[in-house]
C-alpha cells in the first residue's frame, strides 16, 4: 500500500451488497438511496473453473470483465458507505467472492413473481456466513405476499428478516439498509451470547 500517513484525513469506506436476480430492481434501489447518480465500473475478476477437458483435470483460472453499478452515501465525516449491485446474471455468481470480501452485509432483493431468482444469492451468503436480509420489492400489479409466506417459499432460517419495500422510494430503500444493519448488530449480540 502507498502512503497511509494521512489516514486521519480519510473517512472509513464501507460496503453493502445489493444482490438478487436480473431485473429485480437492484440498480433502482442503489439509485434511490445514493447521494450520487449511480456509477458503473468494469472490473476484471478471476474465475476459478474446473477445466472442461477431462485429460487435463486441473483447475484453471480465467478472467472476466464484469460491469457493476454502485452508489454512495456519506454517513458522517468518518464513514462513507458504498452500495454495490451484484451482477444479476447467474453465470457471474463466482465474482461475488471478490466483490463480497470486506462487505458489512448484503440485501437480497426479491420479486415474488420470480422468487427462484434470489435462491443463488441466499445460498451464497448463507454459505459464506455473510449477514443478509431479504427485501421483497413490491411491484405494481404483483400479488402482495405476506413476509412469512416469502420466508417459507425461500426456506429461510427464522432469524433472517424479511422486509417489504418499494425500491423506487428513497425512504423505503434507506429503511431496508437500516433493517440490515440492525440485523447485523442483533445477530452479533446473539453470537456473543452463544459464545458465553
Amino acid at each position: 500500500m502507498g502512503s497511509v500517513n494521512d489516514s486521519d484525513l480519510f473517512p472509513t469506506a464501507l460496503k453493502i451488497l445489493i444482490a438478487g436476480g436480473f431485473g429485480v430492481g437492484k440498480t433502482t434501489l442503489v439509485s434511490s438511496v445514493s447521494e450520487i447518480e449511480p456509477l458503473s465500473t468494469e472490473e476484471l475478476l478471476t474465475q476459478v473453473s474446473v477445466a472442461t477437458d477431462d485429460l487435463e483435470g486441473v483447475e484453471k483460472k480465467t478472467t472476466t470483465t464484469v460491469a457493476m453499478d454502485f452508489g454512495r452515501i456519506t454517513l458522517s465525516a468518518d464513514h462513507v458507505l458504498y452500495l454495490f449491485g451484484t451482477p444479476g446474471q447467474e453465470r457471474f455468481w463466482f465474482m461475488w467472492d471478490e466483490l463480497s470480501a470486506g462487505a458489512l452485509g448484503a440485501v437480497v432483493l426479491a420479486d415474488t413473481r420470480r422468487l427462484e431468482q434470489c435462491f443463488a444469492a441466499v445460498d451464497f451468503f448463507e454459505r459464506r456466513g455473510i449477514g443478509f436480509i431479504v427485501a421483497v420489492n413490491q411491484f405494481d400489479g404483483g400479488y402482495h405476499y405476506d413476509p412469512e409466506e416469502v420466508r417459507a417459499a425461500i426456506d429461510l432460517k427464522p432469524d433472517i428478516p424479511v422486509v417489504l419495500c418499494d425500491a423506487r422510494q428513497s425512504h423505503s430503500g434507506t429503511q431496508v439498509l437500516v433493517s440490515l444493519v440492525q440485523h447485523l448488530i442483533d445477530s452479533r449480540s446473539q453470537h456473543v451470547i452463544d459464545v458465553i
Partner: protein
Amino acid sequence: MSEIVEGPWLDGDAGRLVRPYTVSDGRTKPSAHFDLLTLVMATGTRPHSYLGPDHSHVLGLCGGPLSVAEIAAHIRQPAMVAKVLLSDLVDCGAITARAPERAPLGSDPTDRDLLEAVLDGLRKRL
C-alpha cells in the same frame, strides 16, 4: 445494448477512442494494491516529472477523498487502468491512499461500534 443505427457513430456511440490499456502504457498491474474502495486524495505536492494528460485528469479528480471505483467510472476506464494510473500518482507523491475497512466475515464479530455508527448515519436520512 444500443440499437444498430444507420450513419456514422458519433461521440460516445463510437466507443473509446483509445484502447483501454494504452492509457496505462500497456501495464495491467498497479505497483501498489488497490481495492475498488481504496480512497485516494491529492497531497497537494506536484510531481517534478511531467504528468501525461491521463494522470493529470485523474489527479484533478482527487480533490476530496474519492474511491478507486468512482475514479474509474469518471474516467470511463476499467478499474484496473484506474489502479495503474493511481499507483503511479502514489509513487510520485501526488496522492495518498487508504485501504478500505475490512469487516471480518464469518463467525468473527463485526465491530459493533462501527455498525452502530452506520445505523446512526442511516437513521438520520430517514
